[in-house]
């Protein structure tokens, strides 16, 4: 099961701005070691991922074997770089994420254009090992590095009109060649209800396996909602909007009967074309039973109290 470190277990030095200072020192060291003066932060200007110097290890762990890094970085659904599983690793090689900006808008006190670094900087990066369950019935176990989305949302001070959070992926077919074909209606959009976004499990991830986010996994910044099907975890985010109405989401627009807004992992509600009862953990031959909310029932089930999960799929 999941072990969450109590806040008291974390030395105060790790959560004070001082740790941020050390963290930044660590980036600088890494950067200079690589001899790339351009690398001001680990997620700036990299096409290959580099080590992240300082983060809180094992903030959330799992007694399950990690998916080999090679598998997690070579088997990807990231249609912006092609629809085949091995396309993203190949086609995202030259994707540059220098000076990545995120536009924050809608119902909040602090709208504006933020550099990713400024948005993340005030918070300590945590390592969290989560299950990832794809709607296609395969799964992985991935050690993510990121910041709880709740911390970032709080810093942006949403107003009472912020009922949902909408996210958008970069739309630039020059940089994302998969967007040259209209297999989906670009840009990719996702959204969460504000309480889902504020749930302690929800992570804004900037890395995995101790390194900055590989391009094929959603560099430089992506969402991770481990109790939802993988497609909810939107990649290469360029905008975050606080909105009053439930936002449109890409796969729901594509097939409203097949992909709901919530898309919580639920073995009892089948996708109309395939079963969700079981999944194949990458590396296994046989399938294993899928867990309710992907095994995060304790943490998230309360969000859906009184909701019919058959209609709100």
């Amino acid at each position, binding site marked *: 099961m999941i072990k969450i470190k109590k806040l008291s277990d974390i030395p105060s030095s790790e959560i004070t701005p001082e740790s941020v200072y050390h963290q930044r020192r660590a980036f600088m060291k890494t950067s200079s070691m690589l001899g790339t003066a351009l690398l001001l932060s680990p997620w700036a200007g990299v096409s290959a991922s580099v080590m992240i110097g300082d983060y809180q290890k094992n903030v959330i762990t799992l007694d399950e074997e990690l998916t080999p890094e*090679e*598998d*997690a970085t*070579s*088997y990807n659904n990231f*249609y912006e770089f092609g*629809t085949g*599983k*091995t396309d993203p690793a190949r086609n995202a090689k030259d994707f540059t994420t220098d000076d990545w900006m995120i536009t924050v808008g809608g119902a909040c006190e602090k709208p504006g254009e933020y550099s990713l670094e400024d948005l993340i900087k005030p918070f300590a990066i945590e390592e969290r090992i989560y299950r990832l369950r794809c709607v*296609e019935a*395969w799964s992985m176990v991935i050690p993510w590095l990121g910041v709880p989305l709740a911390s970032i949302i709080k810093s942006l001070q949403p107003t009472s009109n912020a009922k949902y959070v909408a996210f958008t992926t970069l739309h630039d077919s020059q940089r994302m060649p998969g967007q040259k*074909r209209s*297999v*989906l209606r670009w840009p990719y959009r996702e959204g969460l209800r504000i309480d889902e976004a504020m749930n302690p499990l929800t992570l804004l991830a900037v890395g995995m396996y101790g390194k900055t986010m590989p391009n094929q996994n959603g560099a430089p910044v992506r969402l991770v909602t481990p109790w939802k099907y993988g497609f909810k975890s939107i990649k290469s985010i360029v905008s975050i909007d606080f909105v009053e109405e439930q936002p449109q989401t890409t796969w729901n627009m*594509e097939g409203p009967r097949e992909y709901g807004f919530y898309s919580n992992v639920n073995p009892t509600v*089948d996708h109309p*074309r*395939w*079963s969700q009862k079981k999944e*194949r953990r*990458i*590396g296994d*031959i*046989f*399938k294993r039973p899928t867990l309710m909310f992907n095994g995060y029932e304790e943490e998230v089930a309360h969000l859906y109290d009184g909701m019919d999960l058959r209609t709100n799929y």
Partner: protein
Amino acid sequence: MLDLSKMLRSSFAKPVLFILCLVPISALVWRAFYGDLGANPIETITRDVGDWTLRFLLITIAISPLRQWFGWTVILRFRRMLGLYVFFYAFCHFLIWFVADHSFDFSEMLEDIIKRPYITFGFSAFLLLVPLAVTSNQSMVRRLGKRWKQLHRLTYAIVMLGVLHYLWQVKADYLEPGIYAVIAGLLLLQRVDFKKWFDARTSVQSSKPA
């Protein structure tokens, strides 16, 4: 210069083709041995074997038009072997799914066949292949006579089911199954005798009292 028709007529042609048809499955075994099947080997194998089933199926139904268009009567003698390879690849495709996806659970497999249209199509196509494989030998051809030809027209239904099986499971990118659908469509349309159909219609019309 190479004489194609002479090569096709040679007694080596069949054994060579037999071995060629084993290349796709041998390549998979080779890749499995060297751990080159990617992060999800079962999926890679299932997809690849499925692709080859469809490819062999289309090659098999291309034999007759190729003979008509280019006068390659000689290739007709490869059709039975190609058809049997369709069955072989379909059987492998089915077996991997039954074993790896359903861990030999028969009732669960049946539920999947009934509930999921793409599996319904795929499994029906596989079932229809069985009588064709069973009646493929010379003595069955002789015993069934005229009915053999009628029975083997099931191939056309199998092609349609096979293409639907692929199309129906795609999430967003229809390009690849679309290519198979177009090729299959052309090969099936080629068999429709439009002239006869047209003549029949016009003769009905002209026989109407003025």
